[in-house]
């Protein structure tokens, strides 16, 4: 097809060629084309088949308001080809066809529409119910849109942008640009969003003048230049609004061009005020076969020619209800389109200049006439009729430009919870009550005069600026006066449907819903639009109600002869389809590494996510960790324990705060000693454990479990919030790394790097010392025994951690020191029956259940211990769970962690169980109901996928290793 390459309105660059692949052929396009316009320029008229009836579908709106032109592009289904800019090498396919879009074997279904009335699925396939699973499969094969391969990997780069703005203007037409410029005058930060790839809106493609002799397209470009030159306006084109939320939160997504660093990006704007200048779309004219390829809206036909240089047909008929239709007919005629007739739904009210221009071109105008039927698979003929249906005439044509009228794009208002009403003069659904600091502008207010459109934009921009606190010194009044002096809202066309029965008059293209099916729904009692919408499936498709959104409530009101004011149906985000990948954005995986991460990795560490951290769980392919465990038991090992929570608490009331949250009497913390204790919640359920040391007067250092570190400061502050105590907390979790040096040779290794006296007398079990390592590095050393061996826990400044680790590794080389990971630690401490909260406990487990009742000091009275009241209750409860040691009857078959202990009911679960390399037994800990906790009780264990085969264990004494603790106290 030859393009109209010389038009000043073009948004394509005919000199820059593009190609796409379609049905194995390479088709040419040009820069600025959308996929749909490139296909249309190459003669493609049928783009896809409809969801249910497999009816042929073609270009209709050019703005992706319906699924008509959704295709498979580069293996992504349901791509709105009207909105997708053509890129070189795109591979485009039809979807939902058996055969081709031109000849679809499934097209016969269209003949059987009578078998599928509204609510077809609801009442046809559920009796008998057994039919449904089979019917559903067949329906899913026959219906639907595109399909995505389960193996498809989304390509591209997706990004996010979080903006702050004083004023956000939605819509980059003339009104939007004027609003942005006006708001920017006061120095405010202004964001301008435009869904199309360029600014201009309804001015962009029109050559009629704006009242002072300037063509509208030229005026739009002038405004765009002013906007570009205003530094405090940030413009985002090809960025459709996705949602508006309370407190003026706006979301959008932007499609990247070849020169952008992103494929698509999510934009979130927090704005002080909003101007909505989204303009109007066309309200579809309802007549038989109103969605046939060859039927298109006025703007679609006009923009095809003026923006993309493509004449939409050869011989056209117009059936329109507004002056833009007449203007388009004149302009397209001048560009070479033959026009058989213009049927204007309106009896009167046309712009006389336009009627004169039509007469000058000998284009017949039929007032009070409307299209009744389009003929042909693609349009070959149209039947026109008077709006009363009394007279009919046929016209041959390949293009029917049809539009009932305009209707405002009110999605932003509806999503922002504006109250909507019906305006009888314009025939528009308009907000009757707007959210705070939200202002409408432009054509959606009903004005059509170009100067009035601009004036309304400026007024809204100033109002938005004033809402941000800008003092306007009378400018606002002047803008109001200027707007009032210009033509106001225009009278709109009220006709909803041509005088037809409506069996093939489609009110919703996406869901193949017709006027007939709407009537069926209403006749069944679904007599309000929100119910019809769901029962007949009107507006539930990917077009988000763009096509039926306004016709449905109008038709329902007419058909039910309702005296109530029609209201539009609800819209919800996303207003336009948005890739999930766009929402995911760059998706940086944010996790914490310990100071030893690199060296642990170099040493063969296998990492796992543990809370917000990555930790080395294993150091070999042997995930049973035999060598790691035995080396600790028999020699010496080192563990990176840096993820432990670590805190300083200081101030005159620090002790009171500790007394409040710990169950023990913390006044008994002695300098040079460690105190192990636990925290409970108000229910007495144990939530954390750790050690506390006193470092000075009113100055303590304490540890928490890894998982609780992030919540500890808030936890303590929350539980002391009414006391007015003077204490302060500092989170040192990341500041200090931790090395756990464990094993019978631990003392020998540590002695090589420190001058401190490490003898058991000078530094006994449960002792705390501040020592120097390597001659200069300070370390806080604790004698602990979590793994059941002689152990030193060294707390070292994070930046020195690697140096200290290297020193110990060097010192321990002669003993065969080696790393051990989290799994080895898990087994070692399990053998000793030292619990890990979260593993030997769950949400309902209290301090007493896990055998930590000895920590609870019932006598301290100065501070009310969190959880103490509940623990007093729980102590008398005979039905609680109890933590017990268990051993499998088959030592070669340990049960899995989390396996259930059952009889006829669930009686408990296995917390941790491993084959112990130290004892040779399969042992572990389990939480069981008290009656099952006696030593020797046989337990029946159920595992996932056990196929009915139970495992058996018996309750045994704890701990399984070194019951007197001689090794760790050595």
């Amino acid at each position, binding site marked *: 097809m030859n393009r109209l390459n010389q038009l000043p309105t073009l948004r394509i660059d005919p000199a820059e060629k593009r190609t796409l692949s379609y049905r194995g052929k390479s088709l040419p396009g040009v820069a600025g084309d959308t996929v749909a316009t490139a296909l249309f320029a190459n003669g493609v008229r049928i783009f896809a088949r409809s969801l249910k009836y497999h009816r042929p579908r073609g270009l209709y709106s050019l703005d992706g308001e319906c699924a008509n032109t959704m295709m498979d592009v580069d293996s992504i289904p349901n791509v709105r080809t009207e909105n997708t800019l053509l890129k070189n090498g795109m591979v485009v396919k039809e979807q939902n066809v058996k055969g081709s879009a031109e000849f679809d074997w499934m097209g016969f279904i269209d003949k059987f529409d009578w078998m599928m009335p509204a609510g077809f699925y609801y009442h046809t396939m559920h009796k008998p119910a057994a039919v449904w699973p089979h019917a559903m499969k067949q329906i899913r094969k026959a219906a639907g849109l595109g399909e995505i391969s389960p193996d498809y990997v989304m390509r591209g780069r997706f990004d996010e942008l979080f903006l702050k703005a004083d004023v956000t203007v939605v819509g980059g037409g003339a009104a939007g640009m004027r609003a942005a410029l006006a708001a920017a005058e006061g120095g405010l*930060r202004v964001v301008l969003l435009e869904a199309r790839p360029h600014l201009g809106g309804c001015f962009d493609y029109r050559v009629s003048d704006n009242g002072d002799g300037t063509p509208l397209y030229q005026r739009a470009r002038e405004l765009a230049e002013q906007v570009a030159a205003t*530094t405090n306006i940030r413009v985002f084109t090809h960025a459709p609004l996705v949602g508006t939320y309370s407190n003026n939160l706006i979301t959008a997504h932007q499609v990247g061009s070849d020169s952008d660093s992103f494929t698509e990006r999510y934009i979130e704007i927090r704005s002080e005020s909003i101007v909505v200048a989204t303009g109007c779309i066309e309200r579809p004219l309802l007549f038989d076969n109103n969605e046939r390829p060859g039927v298109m809206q006025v703007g679609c036909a006009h923009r095809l020619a003026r923006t993309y240089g493509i004449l939409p047909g050869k011989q056209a008929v117009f059936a329109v209800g507004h002056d833009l239709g007449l203007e388009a007919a004149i302009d397209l005629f001048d560009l070479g389109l033959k026009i058989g007739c213009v049927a204007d739904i309106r009896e009167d009210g046309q712009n006389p200049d336009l009627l004169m221009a039509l007469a000058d071109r000998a284009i017949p105008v039929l007032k009070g006439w409307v299209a009744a039927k389009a003929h042909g698979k693609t349009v070959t003929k149209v039947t026109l009729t008077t709006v009363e249906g009394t007279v009919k005439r046929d016209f041959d044509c390949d293009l029917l430009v049809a539009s009932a009228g305009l209707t405002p794009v009110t999605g932003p208002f509806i999503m922002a919870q504006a109250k909507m009403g019906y305006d009888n003069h314009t025939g528009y659904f308009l907000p009757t009550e707007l959210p705070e600091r939200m202002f409408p502008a432009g054509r959606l207010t009903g004005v059509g005069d170009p100067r009035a459109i601009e004036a309304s934009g400026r007024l809204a921009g100033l109002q938005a600026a004033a809402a941000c606190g800008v003092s306007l010194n009378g400018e606002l009044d002047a803008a109001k006066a200027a707007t009032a002096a210009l033509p106001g809202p225009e009278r709109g066309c009220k006709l909803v449907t041509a005088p037809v029965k409506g069996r093939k008059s489609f009110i919703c293209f996406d869901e193949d819903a017709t006027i007939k099916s709407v009537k069926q729904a209403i006749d069944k009692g679904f007599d309000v639009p929100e119910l019809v919408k769901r029962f007949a499936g009107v507006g539930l498709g990917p077009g988000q109600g763009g096509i039926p959104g306004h016709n449905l409530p109008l038709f329902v009101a007419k058909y039910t002869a309702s005296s109530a004011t029609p209201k539009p149906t609800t819209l919800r985000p996303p207003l336009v389809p948005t890739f999930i990948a766009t929402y995911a954005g760059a998706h940086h995986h944010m996790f914490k590494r310990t100071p030893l991460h690199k060296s642990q990795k170099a040493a063969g560490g296998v990492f796992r996510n543990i809370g917000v951290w990555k930790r080395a769980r294993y150091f070999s392919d042997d995930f049973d960790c035999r060598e790691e465990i035995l080396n600790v038991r028999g020699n010496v090992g080192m563990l990176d324990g840096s993820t432990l929570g670590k805190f300083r608490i200081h101030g005159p009331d620090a002790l009171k705060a500790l007394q409040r949250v710990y169950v023990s009497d913390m006044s008994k913390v002695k300098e040079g000693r460690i105190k192990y204790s636990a925290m409970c919640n108000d229910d007495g359920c144990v939530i954390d454990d750790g050690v506390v040391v006193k470092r000075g007067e009113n100055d303590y250092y304490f540890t928490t479990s890894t998982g609780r570190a992030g919540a500890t400061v808030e936890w303590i502050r929350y539980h002391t919030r009414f006391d007015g105590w003077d204490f302060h907390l500092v989170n040192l979790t990341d500041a200090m790394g931790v090395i756990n040096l464990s094993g019978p040779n631990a003392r020998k290794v540590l002695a090589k790097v420190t001058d401190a006296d490490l003898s058991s007398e000078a530094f006994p079990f449960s002792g705390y010392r501040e020592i120097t390592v390597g001659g200069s590095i300070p370390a806080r050393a604790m004698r602990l025994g979590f793994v059941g061996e002689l152990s030193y826990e060294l707390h070292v400044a994070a930046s*020195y951690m690697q140096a200290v680790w290297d020193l110990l590794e060097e010192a321990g080389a002669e003993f065969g020191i080696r790393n051990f990971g989290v799994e080895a630690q898990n087994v070692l401490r399990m053998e000793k029956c030292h619990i890990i909260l979260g593993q030997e406990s769950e949400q309902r487990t209290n301090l007493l259940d896990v055998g930590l009742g000895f920590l609870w000091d019932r006598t301290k009275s100065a501070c009310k211990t969190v959880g103490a009241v509940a623990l007093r209750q729980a102590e008398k409860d005979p039905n609680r769970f109890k933590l017990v040691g268990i051993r499998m009857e088959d030592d070669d078959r340990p049960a899995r962690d989390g396996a259930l202990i059952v009889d006829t009911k669930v009686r408990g679960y296995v917390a941790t169980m491993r084959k112990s390399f130290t004892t040779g037994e399969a042992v572990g800990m389990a939480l069981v109901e008290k009656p099952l906790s006696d030593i020797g009780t046989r337990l029946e264990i159920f595992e996932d996928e056990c196929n009915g085969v139970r495992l058996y264990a018996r309750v045994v004494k704890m701990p399984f290793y070194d019951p007197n603790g001689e090794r760790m106290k050595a």
Partner: protein
Amino acid sequence: MAEIRRESPVDFGVRSLETEVRSDWPVALAYDAEGDGPWVVDLSHKTRWDLQDGQVGELTPAGQSVPATPGMSVLADGILINRMNRTQTSIYHLGSDAPDLPDHPGFTDVTEATIFLALFGPHALHIAEKLSNLDLGDPNKEAPFLLQGPFCHVPCQIVTLEKDAEDGTNGAGGFVLTCSRGYAQSMVHAILDAGAEFGLRPAGEQRFAQWLAALSS
């Protein structure tokens, strides 16, 4: 014997051009091809203090007054003092030397607790927009000012030291950021990735010192 050296949690993945060892910290002074900005600089070796006291507003850490209002910061003599809340202040020593930790019990040296990055130059605030919904260019606030909140989903303290002099929309300016040390590599990766389209490059301490001097002049 193993070398006694401190390690920054930040690794830009490129070798520095010039390095100096200071109190066991290897400090990158300059990188090759630092470009025309924006720049990201690792300041993790710079001393940071936490000061908490019921009367924090009346204290004068390092001889400077604590700002009266939470969210306010003051920068003087290379010391940045940020009022966090009613009782808490963070103190960053941006100059080359820091005094010893004062004897007052409310002070805690938290240098090791966080990473400390500076991001400045053209489009610095545009990079921040990609990672945080905090308003680093808030026209209602005069730099320096403190923000506390998520940056790339991680809780951070961010101090805007400079924003575009005219209207704050060209994204020029700069800020310093601290967050938990463990997030260092994730944060650096996210920042470098977000800044790639603007030509963000790692730079050495000298570049930061020049910027700081220009801010102070």
